[in-house]
């Protein structure tokens, strides 16, 4: 291995160098000390890697108090002995047992098919910067934003709750199955699971989004009930928006902005006093860019207007004008470098 060709990142990936920093193996120690003595041309890269490795390894190791290991093992041994002591009745293999086994097998196969038909799920993923439309079995339409996925059962039983699981952001147009004034039946219910929230739908158009620990539901038409558990749900009216902050377990409702919430459907982002950091989040979460600010104060600036998201060049042109910054694009790793304008 030619360590003279290595840069910092190569060194960081090298198991032998890690062993040297940890000082576990005298042979490895000798090797690297000799190597340093040769004054290799890339010694700077080596030192950078060493500097970083020593800090990466600086956390104190955690170990259990003495006796803990034995205590837990005693509990394990006890559970195991109890489990093993439970008698298992022996069944002789007679002819009728074989016949019964075949019957069971057939029933099992039927059950397996049934379980497969109604529990097998399908997952649709829209990649960064793309959108995907999914038409569900009940003709409800779900439009997925970039970097979002939807999981749902291949088939819904006639009288069971329609349930889908969403990761990311999507716009729902749900088929209204309730045609009477009787209490809601299971088959009429439609549930969206997103983050830690359950959104109970009562025939409606709405947008849901789960990014960076915050789940947002915007309701356009109809009614939905939003809750983190079954006990307490918030009923939303059209035009309202609910935000759930996962870390704080906080559910807040406030008037929403219809134009802004569903603007992504038209490849736009509507800005009403929107902080630049929120724009950056969308560029990163939905379009897969990585945004680097040389001047971080830009992140807190607030701007108004409409950003077209469909075409990268147009987007960057408008954004750089709005913010009076220069934006460089590194195509290889989709990085946008934002520098103060001249």
């Amino acid at each position, binding site marked *: 291995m030619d360590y003279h060709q290595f840069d*910092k*990142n190569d060194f*960081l990936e090298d*198991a032998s160098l*890690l062993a040297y*920093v940890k000082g576990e193996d005298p042979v490895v120690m000798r090797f690297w000390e000799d190597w340093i003595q040769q004054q290799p041309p890339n010694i*700077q890269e080596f*030192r*950078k890697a060493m*500097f*970083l*490795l*020593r*800090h*990466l*390894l*600086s*956390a*104190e*190791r*955690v*170990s*259990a108090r003495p006796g*803990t*290991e034995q*205590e*837990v*093992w005693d*509990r*394990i*041994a006890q*559970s*195991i002995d109890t*489990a093993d002591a439970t008698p298992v009745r022996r069944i002789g293999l007679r002819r009728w047992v074989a016949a019964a086994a075949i019957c069971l097998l057939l029933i099992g196969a039927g059950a397996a098919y049934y379980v497969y038909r109604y529990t097998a799920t399908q997952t649709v993923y829209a990649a960064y910067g793309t959108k995907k439309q999914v038409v569900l079995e009940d003709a409800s339409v779900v439009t997925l934003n970039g970097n979002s996925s939807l999981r749902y059962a291949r088939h819904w039983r006639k009288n069971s709750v329609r349930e889908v*699981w969403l*990761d990311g952001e999507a716009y729902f147009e749900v088929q209204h199955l309730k045609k009477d004034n009787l209490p809601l039946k299971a088959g009429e219910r439609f549930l969206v*699971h997103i*983050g*830690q929230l359950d959104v109970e739908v009562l025939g409606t158009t709405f947008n849901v989004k789960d990014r960076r*620990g915050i789940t947002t539901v915007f309701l356009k038409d109809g009614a939905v009930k939003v809750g983190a*558990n*079954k006990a307490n749900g918030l009923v939303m009216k059209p035009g309202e928006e609910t935000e759930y902050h*996962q870390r704080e377990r906080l559910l807040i409702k406030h008037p929403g902005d219809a134009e802004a919430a569903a603007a992504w459907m038209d490849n736009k982002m509507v800005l009403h006093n929107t902080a630049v950091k929120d724009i950056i989040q969308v560029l990163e979460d939905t379009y897969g860019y*990585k945004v680097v600010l040389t001047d971080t104060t830009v992140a807190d600036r607030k701007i108004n207007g409409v950003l077209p998201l469909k075409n990268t060049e147009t987007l960057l042109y408008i954004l750089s004008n709005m913010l009076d910054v220069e934006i460089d694009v590194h195509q290889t790793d989709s990085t946008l470098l934002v520098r103060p304008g001249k």
Partner: protein
Amino acid sequence: MNELAAKPITWWKSFLGGDKDALSALYRYYFPVLYEYGVRLHDQEELVKDCIQDLFVKLWTNRSTIQEARDPRLYLLIALRGGIYNKLRPAGVRRVIPYEAHHDFRLTFSAESAYVKKEAAGLRSKQLLQALEKLSARQKEIIYLRFYEEMEYEDIAAIMGITVKAAYKLYARALDALRGLLNISMSALLVLLAQHKG
């Protein structure tokens, strides 16, 4: 395969065949690793201990359906992580919550460490440690698995339930967050050294 790895694999085989002593050997061999990883994921020691207990009891009762493991440590870490997150799931919720929801990872980088004391750059060290402290839980977890447990990206991805590509990306992003600081620190260090010589 080295000798060190061969032993646990042998124990694994024997325990699948019903050898309780082999299970005990596996437990004693891996307890420190599992305990440390567990309390870094979740700071309630009792819950972690319960999860380790459940894990080994289940290994034993389900041994007829468990397969031979290429790497018992990997198998056990994946199972423990899943066990801890299952326990933390609110009662009545059957579906799996994306682990980010209550994900935490305790890894406190310290200036007191012997590793850091070897570096003579006080202020820069402090800045780097501060930057490391700000890394996300996931980034800390990948650093822990990579540099402390010395695992391959494939295995890290399997443990964290992400693709190998995502694991590389997560790691690269953690480094990117530190890169700027590191370059400054190196040039500052050179200035310091130059002054020393002069």
